[in-house]
């Protein structure tokens, strides 16, 4: 099958039932995408599919062969990465790739989101270190 990730086309052999997260990490070596709960609850594995945040751990890779996938590796130069560092918006950092991917879709659609809009759009990304206030600050000030 063909998989388009961060603008690059890849050919891969994926068995029935393989998740997008597994294909990204194990077949393509794009380990920036993290798998935490593995069942669609926590948001750590969030990637963009045609620009919208999706959970790669419960997305079967065969269902996205005609769509554009963006991972954290594709957002390396996004100002949100610096904003997260500047605001110290992480502790262990495991959820951070998913946080930044979700936030990138939010600021793309709404460059100046309010606190409420940030909370609504980021509700699907859990941070067990509890850095939510700083994540919110990073998104609010992403262009500073």
């Amino acid at each position, binding site marked *: 099958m063909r998989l388009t990730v961060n603008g690059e086309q890849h050919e891969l052999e994926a068995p029935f039932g393989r998740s997008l997260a597994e294909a990204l990490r194990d077949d393509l070596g794009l380990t920036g995408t993290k798998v935490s709960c593995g069942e669609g609850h926590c948001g750590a594995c969030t990637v963009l599919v045609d620009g919208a*945040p999706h*959970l790669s751990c*419960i997305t079967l890779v065969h269902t996205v062969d005609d769509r554009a996938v963006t991972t954290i590796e594709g957002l390396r130069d996004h100002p949100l990465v610096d904003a997260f560092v500047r605001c110290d918006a992480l502790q262990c950092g495991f959820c951070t790739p998913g946080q930044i991917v979700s936030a990138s879709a939010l600021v793309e659609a709404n460059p100046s989101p309010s606190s409420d809009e940030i909370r609504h759009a980021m509700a*699907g990304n859990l941070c067990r270190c509890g850095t939510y206030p700083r994540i919110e600050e990073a998104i609010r000030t992403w262009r500073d």
Partner: protein
Amino acid sequence: MGALGNGTRGLAGGTDLVPLLRDGLVAADRLVDLRRVIPSGIDGTAIGAGTTLAELEADPQIPDALREACRLAASPQLRNMGTIGGNLLQATRCWYWRLNYPCRLHGGDVCHAREGQHREHAIFANDYCASAHPSDVAAALLALDATVETTRAAGPLAGLYRLPDDHDRNLVDLGADELITRIHYERPEQSVYLKAMDRKRWAFALVGVAAARYDDGVRLGLAGVAPIPWRLASLDDLEQATPLPGTAYKLELARALGRRAIAAVGG
């Protein structure tokens, strides 16, 4: 999104089906990607079954009850993935069922929740199986007097669901090769969906109440109170509830949300 028979299953958003396949609660040796087959998008009061919850919540034509039900149904990622047809067919969150206890829905002869942990379970029609139906969208669509069009027939949404019995443990009345294609709703004068959750953002409904006002009165649909989405003719019908010791609080929630919802639509 509906079984196609012969070990083949239809897959739309996959947000419920993929975890169920992984946990061995659903078996399939072949999956068919339905998104290329079933209609999606909104055309007046007709909604393609493949329309995502995210698309519905963003469309100002859609009545408030359904938009709010979609908005509160799940996380942003799940709403981007999940379709309205799949949402109507989602499986119960009963932890005994999800942990594969040999309960009645799994073909056994006992409802473990009735004697065990049932804080999130049903207060209506809970004698045989006390699971609670989690669909916020179905509650809203019941209030909006929706009909469901499938590859075989069209009928009221309420007819899509059935209570389980010894002969048939299914909660959905859909043929093995039958797919939901479209949902039609009646445009109300005003509508609302209110949802009580354990936390403020995206949790399954403890109780969800949808109210829609029409010329002839207010229609109510409830989530989280029965094994299937539940329609109430009026709040007086709450007196017929049969709560378990751990779910008595749900009756209070349903009364309070019901009163608030009816007031909100000017009923």
